[in-house]
């Protein structure tokens, strides 16, 4: 499984990344959460409002800071 956070230079993006890392740890997945900061790349996912959560190259959430629980839910759905 591959998890990315899209977003640069904003506090919300940092929050989402922290929550996602926590969710990954709690699920015991042991994978890296990658942060994409390049605007070109972000737009190539079709995302215009950051932060966004991408699981296995699929955009699952846009423009929101998800709670740890919510992230777990999304990960569970994509698994």
């Amino acid at each position, binding site marked *: 499984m591959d998890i990315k956070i899209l*977003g*640069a*230079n*904003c*506090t*919300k993006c940092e929050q989402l990344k922290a929550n996602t890392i926590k969710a990954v740890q709690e699920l015991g997945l042991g994978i890296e959460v990658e942060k994409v900061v390049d*605007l*070109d790349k*972000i*737009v*190539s*996912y*079709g*995302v*215009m*409002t*950051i932060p*966004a959560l991408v699981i296995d190259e699929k*955009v699952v*959430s*846009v*423009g*929101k800071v998800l709670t740890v629980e919510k992230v777990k839910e999304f990960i569970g759905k994509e698994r």
Partner: protein
Amino acid sequence: MDWKQEWKKLLLIAAVFLVAYFLPVGSARFQNAVLESFHLVRWYAREHVLLCLIPAFFIAGAIAVFINQAAVMKYLGGQAKKVVAYGVASVSGSVLAVCSCTVLPLFSGIYRMGAGLGPAVAFLYAGPAVNILAIILTARILGLELGIARAIGAVVFSIVIGVMMQLIFRKEEGERQKIQMAMPDTDEGRPLWQNGLYFASLAGILIFANWGKPMHDHGLWNAIYQSKWLITAVFAVGLGAMLVSWFKLRWWKILIAAIPVILFAILLPEQPVFAFSAGVLALSLVLVFGKGEGAEWFNSSWDFARQILPLLLFGVMVAGLLLGRVGQEGLIPSSWIDRAVGGNSLLSNFFASFAGAFMYFATLTEVPILQGLIGNGMGKGPALALLLAGPALSLPNMLVIRSVMGTKKTVVFVGLVIVMATISGYLFGLFFS
């Protein structure tokens, strides 16, 4: 020790040392400037934070949570009609963007997969000027005239600049990527009229709590001024009723929240600030310990406050240090400012827009800085020119824009912004001086 990393810190410490070594303590101008800085901070804290900024944060938070952003972005998509796209792009900054970190992804999105270069540029230019916090603070501190001129000027010129960019680069259209826009998922919201009333109650509280004393002691404006707290209270009661019936907050919580407000209003009628603060505090507590939409509303308001207040405090301190309060001098002599941007000549308008375009203003800090400049003799025309060119552009964000649309387009865009800001500042100065 990794000196490739450490040298930056060394440089920083050396710079701080040099500043400390040559600190002009004892010079009258410097000491006066420090005092001015503190005076200005206190003035902002007393006059603008409780009644104006805090309600404004609640409004900005409500916009971020309750306005259906996907509905707005639909009109900026690839299939959208051009005329509509320009119109929406020029005003949508008020609901889509509050800080520059959200403007840039939206801009590159509209350019790459949405309505194209023109609307993207229109959005980029108008966004920072029409965002709700900027309008409120500009109107409050720099005067209603300049606040309205800033909003209208930004909207009109964003369309002009967008259309011109489209015309200049019409051959290069069509390289747009065919990607599906990922829309923010929004839950089915309230009907429009409910949202409308809700925002009206918030706006009513903000407007009437800040109603200024008119010049004459009679007439409609004075009548409103005399009963401004009564009107504000009516809006607040309306808000409370809406929170109970539409936002599913418990009625007894709202009732308990109202008790301290009413007590303060009865016991300290001469100090309405107490009742108002009690209301804000009580509302915050109810929202925080509630669940669902109310909590979301408070979280997003808090998010804005947390990001913007430290920047604004810093901006006010710097503005006070460099420029002083209105009618006072800071570190920079008034005569310099008068020479550079005084009056309303084309040159001073050009200088203001050129300097504004390259300078970086953190969200909202353009307001205290401009206030200082105006207090030191800057003309109204150049002030508008700086407001129109400044927040939309800065050297760092030019670099990002360049990475999105290339050097040539960026240069043309920056040129257009400077020229348009100069002209509109000049015209504004002619009519309102």
